């Protein structure tokens, strides 16, 4: 019986390296080559390469993106997936909207009304924490201390901190973001890649 189960079960195969659709742009490939020189081995290069992938794949580290990173760094898919799913700033679970609003709900922010901000955002956007608006513009996440307690309650959007916020300033922020056609999620990834690229140089 158990054997039948096992044999009959659908067991998808990991993609063959040749069948991968590589999507890194020429710039990304160049950046990757530069990054490789910063580290003693390719394993160390996984984190920055994931950032490149997050940018190249529109802010979402899909399984395909992870496979491409693994392929380009000669690591196993599983290993890279393990790394990517460990860190919360890599968007592996689902594709975020154009703008990802991360609300700090840790102690200081909590005491300064972070959940009122969360409630306000949820009501305003009609979605719950961890979800994306149907038009794909906004996602909201809850995060731990952003190390900006002096500005509590604080939000992070792309590479910017916004705070202290009130329901009114949040509304203004939403308007501003809605009219911004560029993805702040991708911008953040790009900014991180740039930081990494600078690092290796004196």
């Amino acid at each position, binding site marked *: *019986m*158990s*054997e039948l*189960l*096992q*044999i009959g*079960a659908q*067991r*998808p*195969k*990991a993609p063959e390296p040749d069948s991968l659709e590589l999507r890194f742009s020429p710039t990304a490939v160049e950046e990757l080559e530069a990054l490789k020189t910063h580290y003693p081995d390719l394993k160390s290069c996984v984190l920055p390469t994931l950032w490149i992938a997050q940018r190249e794949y529109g802010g979402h580290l899909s*399984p395909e993106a*992870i*496979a491409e990173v*693994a392929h380009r760094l000669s*690591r*196993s*898919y*599983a*290993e890279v*997936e*393990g790394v990517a*799913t*460990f860190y919360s700033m890599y968007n592996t679970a689902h594709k975020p909207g154009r703008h990802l609003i991360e609300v700090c709900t840790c102690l200081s922010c909590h005491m300064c009304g972070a959940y009122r901000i969360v409630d306000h955002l949820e009501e305003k956007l009609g979605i719950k924490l961890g979800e994306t608006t149907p038009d794909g513009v906004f996602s909201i996440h809850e995060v731990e201390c952003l190390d900006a307690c002096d500005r509590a309650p604080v939000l992070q959007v792309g590479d910017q901190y916004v705070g202290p916020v009130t329901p009114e300033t949040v509304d203004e922020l939403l308007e501003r973001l809605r009219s911004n056609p560029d993805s702040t999620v991708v911008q953040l990834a790009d900014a991180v890649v740039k930081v990494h690229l600078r690092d290796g140089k004196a």
Partner: protein
Amino acid sequence: MVKLTINGIELEAPQGELIVETVKRLGLEIPVFCYHPRMKAVGMCRMCLVETGFKQPDGSVRMMPKPQAGCTLPASEGLVVVTDSEAIHRDRKGVLEFLLINHPLDCPICDRGGECPLQNNTMAYGPSTTRFIEMKRHLPKAFPLSQYVTLDLERCIQCGRCVRFTEEISGDSDLAFRFRGAEMQPSTFQLTDFESRFSGNVIEICPVGALTSAKYRFRARPWDLETSPGVCTECSNGCNVWFDHRAGKQVRINGRANDGVNEEWTCDKGKFGHDWYNSTSRLTKPLVRRGDQFVPASWSEAYEEILAAFADKGGKVAGLTGPRVSNEGLFLFKRLFSEAFGSDNVDHRWRSGPVPTGPVPRPLPIASLESKRHILVFGTHLAEDLPIVHLRVRKAWSQSGATVDVAYSAANEVERFAKASLRCRPGAEAALAKCLLGEAVWSGKATVSDAVRAELAGFNADSAEEKSGVSGATVRAAAARLGEGAVVLTSDRLLDAPEPPSAWKSLKALAEATGSEFVCYPTGTNAAGAELLGLVPDHGLSTWQILEGCKDGKIEALWLVEADPSSTHDAALETVPFLVYQGTLENEAMAYASVVLPMAAPAEQDGTWTNCEGRVQRFRQAIAPPGEAKPAWRVFAECLLRARPSTPFFNPGEVMEEIARVHPVFAPAQYSLLPEEGALVARESLVGEPAGGGG
């Protein structure tokens, strides 16, 4: 050596030895989950906590305020360790309480129940009640990770053994931890198929029932199983295994430790490949042909028919053996032919075409590969042909810093860690070997005789690209790495390449001329034994000649032992007037047989096997053969006795004594002398060289 104190006992230990190991030597136990002696210690589970302190100059002991993990704590001078205090017992309770928070405790329906480290440690050290009333984590159960491995994520205690195995030992890194915290789970990429040659090992090292065997699932409770120490007979590595059986049926295979051979690992071919023991097509009765039909016969009827056809027929009869016959069987087979039948036409080698005589392995012990500086794997798909040798080569690279090059005509796992891959065109092995040798000679690294030198004209790094498809720079670098401390390793798969003698000769010359060692491991289960016991025709016909002889009437009676050449030589079997097929399973060759003899499988008899490195290992009978099946050696002994009055052999031990008398290299393999880990029989006798084509 450093002096330290464990539980008040003063002792010496090598500096840096992990305290878990030191304590083990004392005969005490530190409970562990994540620690595994063959992998790096990671200190993930905290089960092994011990109290520590240091001896002060004035002789007093200053204890540390907090416990430390014994699996990551190195022995050092003056260290004081306490493994058995009230505090430690409280700590262990605490750790177990944490581990059990999310564990489903579904032991009654868990295959691991009864042999589960988590169960055992909980029993010995755990809290007997739970304070946990919250919801447990819920995750997929019985997920089919591969055709062999079933994953139950709820049971996982996140020790990382399985993940580390694929990273450190098998090297495919197919498993990794996804997510984090309580949700962390070992998994393949997106839970895709776990395709590894060594996946079965993770089942054994998982300290809980999170990874279980799909084949063994729900088939037995461990306490209902009987087990016998055995040797895997699926390939020539001769892995030591536990052969688990129940009510006379094979149930599962687990790895058994032998540092010289498989350490404690098995490959999936071996671990899951023993199903045929219980097959419904096992032969159970001697059969004789009456017209178009087989009728069951007694053994003596069968012997009479065989002797009538074979006895004293000299060169007109022949015998071919397959790989899965014990040393004792092989020896008596040869003796039966030479003494009772007067024929030297016996062979054990299987090649599709004319065979060069050989391969003659020079058995570099598998474990010695670890101490080599450089290994060139040539002309063999190592992980496929010799999985356990593959693990050793990888270990030489990962743990002793050896460099490895691989020359093969297709993608293969050695490439993952090889310094260079010399991926040649299929069939270009001989040319590549020559180019390497040429390069070594022209660069002044090696010297060869003038005759060889002349043969090498035009073969060098620059011509390698055109001759074999490997770039000149790669060949140059690979040749440069050979020399003192290097090994050129191949298997008899090389002989399947076109021009086998030439590839073999150039490769051997390459090794010798550069001062490297040369080893050619056979791949047939007991091929090394057959080679040592002379199951090659000295004067008679070789496999290919025998089969050709059957076709043109030169051979009148053929005896096949666990060998089936029907796929390539159907006509030969059809034409030969009298065919004996002796085997464990029904097969194609049977269709043409005059007599069919049921044969006992390896675990159904006592006997010894010689693995690829020339290690003779004992396999004790675990279960009874089905029906009237008999061990091959007994059949040959009985035939011999019927044909010639002689001293009978009553058991395989006596046969081995006779073997040792005739072939002194086997002296250490006599049962009374043979150590549990087997004996490496003398190496010289295995050194040789294949002659030209025997066709």
